[in-house]
């Protein structure tokens, strides 16, 4: 617990080595835990980590004992250099598998492995790479053999081969992370392990090249288990927490007094406790997120099923309704011969009822379609006055039965040509009139056509009903909103106004209402007129 003083190495090295070892072991554990059993990359990563530790640790040990025993130091150094080519080889393998998920047995891979092993063996057992070492007070000075430059060249080749797969495929966050790690390591390596020693004979800085491997390892770990830690925020918090732990732990070895040690120990212990809780909550969040995603998928499925069901149901209902509509109209038009006056009336009512049924089914089916913009529209030039007159005829009897006066006010002349689907416009007007009659108990329902500007036309349905309160008014055009009638029960499907709004907006118009509670309401919509030039067709 008290400082270990060895070989006059600055304490930075001890801290760095300890941190690196702990980090690498942690990373290996993480990757082992989170990578799938079948994922070869987990095992490749472990190999990478072990060789890295071997390299860095033995280089460190070599420096450490260099002063006391040059022979042992040389052994350690050679062992470090044995690990180096193999580390580069496994880094290359990771590059291949980060992209391709599995190592394909290829002659290239085997050849590279053989080369790496050969370099390792040469470093260990011959003087080709390392002839000997000298200790110069604080550093190791390596005497390189004739094979040193070829060694560097081959290592450089490994580096290039490692970068190639990364660039050949589409860059994802995984590949970016790995690339970043590789580049940091390579740059440090090229500077401190290759260029400086080889060309400037500066050998005392190559530990920086060694230590930069930790970045490579960390980013590789991320690339491999990214699917578990996909959010940068999550990884960052986890990583920072772990780094904090490591630093606080390693600090313990640098304390100089008992009190300081106790305080540091306490700080470390508390940080571990907090850290664990924090990491737990972060993981919880991840789990919740996943659950949400699953629910969203299920919801989408159910939505699709509902849509399909409605489609099928409405389509099936339409056939008999079409037949009824067809035959009623044919009889009413006299196709089966002359019919008595009363029968004409009854037929008229039957047709009204059936049309209402068809509208209802259409509403239920169409609402989804309209929302998605998938409804079939038959767009043409429509004379609003004609539509309005037809609706008037349709509902005249109904109003009469309820004791309401129904009037129609169309100025003459009026420019009322709009571009829309006639049936849909009819639907909107009918919806307004139907509501007006439904919610008015006494007085009148008046249909008006007004020209607010030369480019637009406005249709108003004014009733003398109970009016609409402000709260109701805001929700009126919402889907499935049904306000209470005078009887106190919600009437209707709640889709009429919602669909009307969607339709008018589809035809580039505006829709709305004004109302005075107790006096009545005015439901209106406006549509742009067909321009004069277009009209002369």
């Amino acid at each position, binding site marked *: 617990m008290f400082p270990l003083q060895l070989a006059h190495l600055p304490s930075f090295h001890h801290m760095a080595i300890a941190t690196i070892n702990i980090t690498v072991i942690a990373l290996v554990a993480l990757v082992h835990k989170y990578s799938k059993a079948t994922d070869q990359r987990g095992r490749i990563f472990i190999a990478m980590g072990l060789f890295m530790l071997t390299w860095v640790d033995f280089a460190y040990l070599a420096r450490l004992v260099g002063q006391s025993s040059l022979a042992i130091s040389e052994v350690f150094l050679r062992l470090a250099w044995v690990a180096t080519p193999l580390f580069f080889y496994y880094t290359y393998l990771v590059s291949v598998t980060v992209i391709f998920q599995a190592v394909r047995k290829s002659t290239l891979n085997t050849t590279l492995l053989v080369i790496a092993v050969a370099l390792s063996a040469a470093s260990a057992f011959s003087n080709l790479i390392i002839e000997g070492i000298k200790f110069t007070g604080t550093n190791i000075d390596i005497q390189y053999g004739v094979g040193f430059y070829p060694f560097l060249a081959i290592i450089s080749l490994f580096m290039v081969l490692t970068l190639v797969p990364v660039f050949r495929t589409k860059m994802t966050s995984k590949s970016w992370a790995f690339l970043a790690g590789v580049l940091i390591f390579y740059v440090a390596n090229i500077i401190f392990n290759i260029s400086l020693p080889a060309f400037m004979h500066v050998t005392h800085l190559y530990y920086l090249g060694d230590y930069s491997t930790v970045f490579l390892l960390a980013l590789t770990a991320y690339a491999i288990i990214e699917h578990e830690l996909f959010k940068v925020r999550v990884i960052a918090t986890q990583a920072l927490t772990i780094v904090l732990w490591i630093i606080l732990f390693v600090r313990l070895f640098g304390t100089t007094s008992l009190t300081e040690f106790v305080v540091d120990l306490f700080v470390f212990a508390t940080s571990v406790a907090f850290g664990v809780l924090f990491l737990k909550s972060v993981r919880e969040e991840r789990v919740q997120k996943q659950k949400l995603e699953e629910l969203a998928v299920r919801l989408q499925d159910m939505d699709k099923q509902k849509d399909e069901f409605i489609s099928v149901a409405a*389509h099936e209902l*339409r*056939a*008999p*309704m*079409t*037949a009824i*509509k*067809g*035959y009623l*109209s*044919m009889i009413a*038009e006299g*196709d089966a011969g002359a019919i008595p006056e009363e029968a004409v009336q009854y037929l008229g009512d039957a047709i009204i009822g059936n049309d209402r049924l*068809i509208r209802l*089914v*259409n509403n239920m*089916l*169409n609402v989804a*379609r309209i929302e998605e*913009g*998938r*409804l*079939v529209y*038959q767009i043409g030039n429509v004379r609003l006055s004609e539509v309005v007159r037809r609706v008037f005829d349709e509902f005249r009897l109904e109003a009469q039965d309820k004791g309401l006066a129904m009037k129609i006010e169309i100025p003459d002349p009026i420019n009322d040509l709009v571009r829309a689907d006639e*049936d849909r416009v009819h639907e909107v007007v009918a919806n307004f009139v139907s509501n007006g009659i439904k919610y008015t108990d006494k007085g009148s329902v008046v249909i008006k056509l007004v020209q607010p500007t030369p480019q637009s036309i406005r249709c108003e349905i004014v009733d003398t009903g109970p009016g609409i309160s402000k709260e109701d008014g805001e929700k009126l055009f919402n889907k499935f909103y049904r306000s209470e009638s005078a009887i106190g029960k919600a009437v209707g499907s709640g889709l009429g106004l919602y669909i009307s709004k969607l339709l008018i907006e589809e035809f580039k118009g505006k829709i709305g209402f004004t109302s005075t509670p107790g006096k009545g309401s005015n439901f209106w919509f406006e549509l742009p007129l067909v321009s004069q030039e277009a009209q002369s067709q």
Partner: protein
Amino acid sequence: MTDETTNTNPPSVAGRPASDTSVPQVSQPVTQSVAPQPAQGPLLFLAEDDPLLTKMYSAKFTKEGFRLLTAGDGQEAYDTITKNKPDFLILDVMMPKLSGLELLEKLRQESHFKDIPVMMLTNLTQKEEAQKALDLGAKEYLIKANLTPSQVVEKVKLHLGGK
């Protein structure tokens, strides 16, 4: 309406001069044997798989003076059309064997039927189907449930040039 098994008769059509008060009966699969009528009015073709609706439209069209052939599924429709070369096609979309759109696509690949006027008469309200039909050169995409038979006849007359 033609039925290949009753080929001993000259081609049977459903058309009646004003003096004929009998109403032709229709049943599935479409068979019809009526006394041959003098050719009058354009020859329409209706593809519709619901016999209830076939009966209704047949009654209306013949009342209006059109000659009419019908079929209850896509394959029969194709055979009838290629055999009889009608002046105007009215096609349902949802039909067994071959859908109305598939049928139209097939017909458009044959030189004689490349330009034959076609109207879709269906209860399918998907925009995609309508667009496809228009792309295949259909003059109209009509929704059955929204129109009375009279209105359908008006559309036919409109596209036949008011004959």
